[in-house]
């Protein structure tokens, strides 16, 4: 039996600010626990060294404003790069599966990156997904976001991609950051039903989450038949997390990963640094490596204190029913949207970057392509903390775009070159080429 790959990168020399939850101390006790357990010495485990992502790996997913260098620190390159190392190890079959215990996290980072939101600058899983597609030719990918916060960044990035199934269960957006992730958010017009949100009430326990897993997540995954399953593995559903209000346990997390059997898990949030993270990380590692985890528990674990709130299960049964229908009706809905007669579908978004206090206004134009998922144009405006205001145009061409979308997208980029936008971008995933131009000087950069 092949081992499980572990890449542990605690970034002991990186913090958003000294007292921020995303600080040096975050994985310190996890380090103590997994090293003291000697788990890296077991034959079932193979430890990997972190790697560096390239600027191109990042530009494949994000429109960084004004450029990639402005939006990242070296720590981000290592964190994203480490997810890629784990992905390579799995794809080369050196390991049966892999867990990247890395920080900084990424699942709140969206396609356009003006700054940090929800502790995230760039999206590690999304960068990994597009890397896997380019390098290994994978097409269908499932991302299950098990963080307590809605993975709004990952959702936005793949909202129009019918080949990426994004499932997120999280504490209800009416009670927690980022305030999104409702059942109505089910994917763009040509990718409807491959975004599945399961908002859960505060205090939901192992029972509720496992019901969702067994009766919704697993059946959908069986039907979707992804090439690879990614767990966007936040650990803040835990009953002790200081930033959220759920009641999940380390045993619950271990069983979740045993059931879900992700090919790759990537750490996201989780800020109960002493009471939860050491035990959840152990639990995930043990479950992924097939090690009996029945002897694992938090020192203060008391299952009798963790009870489903009254009526919660009934509410969960309903959501599961609704979302099974959303998923199973997806092709029908997409066909209807395709035949709507519209050429482009416009929408407007307002995005708030809580960490950096940036307000971004976006206009999205998606081509309602008769053949593929369509290409997308994003017009974005935001004032950065340094006082500079950016007005940019981004053209995004997905890797599986049809010929006609390819032509139109590349033409659009050329047209925008002679415009009043500060920056114009083309993300040409078909050619794996990422262009940006400063219109004032006409200086173009190609990654």
């Amino acid at each position, binding site marked *: 039996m092949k081992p499980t790959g572990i890449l542990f990168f605690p970034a002991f020399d990186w913090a958003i600010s000294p007292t921020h939850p995303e600080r040096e101390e975050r994985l310190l006790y996890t380090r103590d626990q997994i090293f003291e357990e000697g788990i890296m010495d077991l034959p079932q485990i193979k430890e990997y060294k972190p790697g560096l992502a390239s600027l191109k790996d990042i530009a494949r997913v994000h429109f960084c404003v004004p450029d990639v260098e402005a939006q990242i620190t070296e720590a981000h390159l290592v964190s994203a790069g480490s997810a890629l190392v784990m992905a390579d190890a799995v794809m080369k079959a050196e390991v049966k599966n892999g867990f990247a215990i890395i920080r900084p996290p990424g699942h709140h980072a969206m396609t356009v990156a003006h700054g940090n939101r929800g502790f995230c600058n760039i999206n590690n899983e999304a960068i990994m997904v597009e890397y896997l597609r380019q390098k290994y030719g994978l097409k269908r990918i499932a991302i299950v976001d098990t963080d307590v916060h809605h993975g709004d960044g990952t959702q936005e990035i793949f909202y129009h991609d019918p080949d990426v199934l994004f499932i997120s269960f999280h504490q209800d957006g009416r009670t927690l950051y980022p305030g999104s992730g409702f059942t109505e958010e089910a994917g763009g017009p040509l990718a409807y039903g491959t975004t599945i949100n399961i908002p859960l009430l505060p205090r939901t326990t192992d029972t509720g989450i496992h019901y969702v897993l067994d009766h919704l997540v697993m059946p959908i995954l069986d039907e979707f038949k992804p090439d690879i399953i990614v767990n966007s593995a936040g650990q803040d559903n835990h009953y002790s997390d200081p930033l959220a209000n759920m009641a999940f346990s380390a045993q619950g997390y271990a069983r979740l990963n045993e059931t879900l059997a992700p090919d790759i898990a990537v750490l996201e949030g989780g800020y109960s640094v002493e009471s939860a993270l050491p035990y959840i990380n152990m639990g995930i590692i043990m479950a992924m490596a097939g090690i*009996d985890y029945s002897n694992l528990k938090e020192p203060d674990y008391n299952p009798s204190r963790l009870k489903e709130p009254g009526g919660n299960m009934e509410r969960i049964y309903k959501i599961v029913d609704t979302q099974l229908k959303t998923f199973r009706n997806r092709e029908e809905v997409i066909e209807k949207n395709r035949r709507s007669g519209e050429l482009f579908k416009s929408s407007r978004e307002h995005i708030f970057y809580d960490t950096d206090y940036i307000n971004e206004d976006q206009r999205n134009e998606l081509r309602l392509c008769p053949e593929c998922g369509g290409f997308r144009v994003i017009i974005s405006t935001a004032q950065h903390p340094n006082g500079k205001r950016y007005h940019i145009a981004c053209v995004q061409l997905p890797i599986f775009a049809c010929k006609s979308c390819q032509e139109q997208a590349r033409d659009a980029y050329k047209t925008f070159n002679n415009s009043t936008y500060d920056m114009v971008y083309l993300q040409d995933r078909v050619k794996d080429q990422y262009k940006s131009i400063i219109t004032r000087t006409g200086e173009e950069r190609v990654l």
Partner: protein
Amino acid sequence: MLIGIDVGGTFTDGVLFNDGEIVTSVKKPTEEGNLKNSLLQVLDELMVKDDAANIKRIVLSTTLVTNLLATGRGEKTALVLLPGYGLPHDSYDITEDIYFLKGAVDFRGREIERPDNKEIDLLLDWIKSSGSNRIAVAAKFSNRNNVHEKLIKNRILEECDGVHVSISSEISAKLNFPRRAATTYYTAMTISPWNRFVDEIEAALNDRGIEAEVQVLKADGGTIPLQASRSKPCETVFSGPAASTMGGLALTLDDLNSVVVDVGGTTTDLSLIIAGEPLYASRGAVIDKKLTHVNSFAVSSIPLGGDSVITTKGVQPYRIGPAACFGGEKPTVTDAFNIHLNLNLGDVSKSEISMEEIAAHKKMDMGQLCSQIVADVTKRLFSAIKEMFLQWENEPAYKVWEVINQRKFTPDRVIGIGAAAPAMIPALAELMQVEYFIHTYSPVANALGASVVRPTLTVVLHADTQSKKYTLDPGGKTGELEKPKSYQLNHAKDMALQHLLTVGQELGMEDYTADCEFFLEEQFNMIRGWDRVGKLFEVGIQVAPGFIKEFKGVKI
């Protein structure tokens, strides 16, 4: 006068060293069943050249403990584990019979489960009825709080007569419970045979009127006084390869990147010197296939040496006798190199005669055959060397700067050690496209290395200003911080240094403690809510491997 003796698997080497020169050297086959005899024979031959009163220092390197553990002849020891919560009990496979007890502390040293007194009573009954008199006790996170280990030790000592107990917190304070448990178990198993050996050596030296200081070589390339080694037998494992590495360093004394290749009769040991410093095994010494907390050089051992026999099927992983050119019966790797490279070793015609039969059988021209063997052997060594570089380059990293500054090993030189080095090293260096270094003293560089290395000592302090506690390694000393609120990194460093000086004095190595350096300085703010509630420090200071003051290099 300095003496270094390395009792190896095949040979025992000894040198008498003075003022940059080897006065005399001795090489004898090792008597497997009686290492003490081999050692004393070599010592006596060395002493012919000098008077006991002139001997200033003797350093011994021996495979005794390695052999005891490899052949399962250590003392029968019961292992008691308190693993608390986490991995299942059946993942601890250090030995077949493990006695598990309840009781757990966490990474901050907080007690999260008390030991069960009834269980301990049953353990004591079992010890009494089974007649076990060696017990090793290890608890998870005992390096942060050893209250449970001490409790069990005290109960056993109080109620069971004549039982010796080793606890893991006194053996090592490093994280990694299974390694700590294994190290404690192996220590308990070998402590009394090792002490008998030390007694015998002391008596023998006494008989000979030798009053010199006697040190034992450790796997980390440093020495420890013979007396102090009594409680730490495991530190002496794999000292042979350490002797060779330090020997290579002693002969060169510069800061190049070197591969030390110690070509023995049946095996070749590889080690790396990076910018003048020997590379450590990041995971500790492996004893009986178990990882331990014994600090050891990274050594890769290949079953291929100068005396490896050549048959029609190629190079064999065993030795029958010396090379044909040195009077042996069978052709060996040395003979093939001798012919192919015109090395003029011993009687070349005998190399040729021994090879002829094989060449005839393989219907090959002799030159062709030898060239093929040389190419095979050097390729195997080079690929093992490359594997070592790669392992070092791929060591995990936990900080951003470590990843950004990716390390890359480019060898500058191959240092050949061992009697067969002159045959094999030049061809290997040519394949690697680096220079090589072979010295007149290369055949006994291991014993030379042993004779001139200095003591080493590593101290690690863990301090927690919220719980106000600290622990110090070695020894597992714990205590309360006096002024936790104003405690800073400089205080932690100062405490670690003081401990190093104290322990150094106990070990009689005051001459070297001034040469210490910090190798670990970790500090973390503990934030709860948005406030700092304390700081965690981990500070390490060491006297690294090096040479005694009077050693300034070899003269020739």
